[in-house]
């Protein structure tokens, strides 16, 4: 039985301990001393500091990625919502005043705030809408095509194509600098 074997191996008296020590060289009282434990804890804590720094950096990086993705999602969703509106309801401006609703239809309306707090981070929004101009003097937009083989023509579509830039900025948790995400799209006046 294992219990009996264990009992047989354990010393029962000082004399038996001495005999066991002489026979095997093992000191039944030998173990980790307090000095060793203190030294171990000291080394462990010294080495743990940079390692904890790595943990903290990983955590910080995850938070920063979260902020970035939140900003990108904000840009994308507002640009898609604005693109769904008729072009005539998109005001030209740099920047376009926010904190108001865009769109006249109850069923197709979007409210864009000038800022928002997401996951304890303050985000600021900026919207720019302008007409797209094809020429260098920025006065016109046109399309080219052929009406007959070899016969080129063009047609002006002045002020019928808009460019929408949406920028979200926030203060980085890492270095306190301002980070930015900007996405843009184009919207044609098809009405």
């Amino acid at each position, binding site marked *: 039985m294992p219990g009996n074997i264990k009992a047989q191996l354990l010393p029962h008296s000082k004399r038996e301990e001495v005999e066991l*020590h002489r026979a095997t060289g093992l000191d039944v009282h030998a173990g980790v001393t307090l000095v060793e434990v203190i030294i171990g804890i000291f080394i*462990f804590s010294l080495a743990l500091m940079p390692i904890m720094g*790595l943990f903290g950096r990983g955590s910080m990086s995850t938070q920063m990625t979260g902020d970035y993705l939140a900003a990108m999602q904000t840009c994308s969703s507002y640009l898609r919502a604005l693109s769904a509106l008729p072009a005539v309801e998109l005001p030209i401006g740099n920047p376009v005043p926010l904190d108001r609703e865009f769109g006249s239809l109850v069923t197709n309306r979007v409210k864009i705030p000038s800022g928002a707090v997401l996951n304890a981070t303050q985000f600021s929004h900026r919207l720019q809408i302008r007409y797209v101009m094809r020429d260098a003097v920025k006065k016109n*937009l046109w399309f080219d095509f052929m009406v007959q083989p070899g016969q080129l023509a063009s047609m002006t579509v002045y002020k*019928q194509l808009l460019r929408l830039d949406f920028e979200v900025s926030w203060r980085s948790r890492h270095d306190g600098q301002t980070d930015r995400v900007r996405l843009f799209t184009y919207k*044609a006046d098809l009405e």
Partner: protein
Amino acid sequence: MKTSVSRKRGMVIVIVLFALTSSLIFAGFLMNRSVKQGYEKIITRERTQLELLCHAAIEIAKLKIKAAPTELYTAFRFKLDEPAATRTSALYDAFLADLRLEVLDPELTSESVPMTARVTAIERLGITKKGTGLSNGYVEDYLRITASASSQLASFSGGKGLKNDVVMQVTMQITKLERQ
């Protein structure tokens, strides 16, 4: 003789080193994951931007079709319906030639990340429905627009670079008046 004590002495160091190595490996794994997350967010941003540009290219194609429907159908006719001797895709190619965002908006070329977006095809699906309810001569036709957008990040993940491509297709209905 105290040989037994020296056998156990130093075990704490081994245990501490083992714990530290384990922690270091785990911290390295977390760091590696966070670095990959950093790359992932850039990739996601690029793809989102390219999706928006594909939408924009399709929007611009609709604008051109609305502005010049006769010219588009003339291009289709010369490309598909004319006798072999007079058949040409020059009109069709000319129609698509400026359906590129970098052509229509020269400011696109000044973006920090080089990107392009264009309409690659406008196809006549051949599904024509007569009797639209408008009046005689009007027919409904269906067109398929294909747009593609791409970007090239030069310095990415150790200078390897990153190329992103997005292709989008949309089928649209057009109501047109056919000449008798």
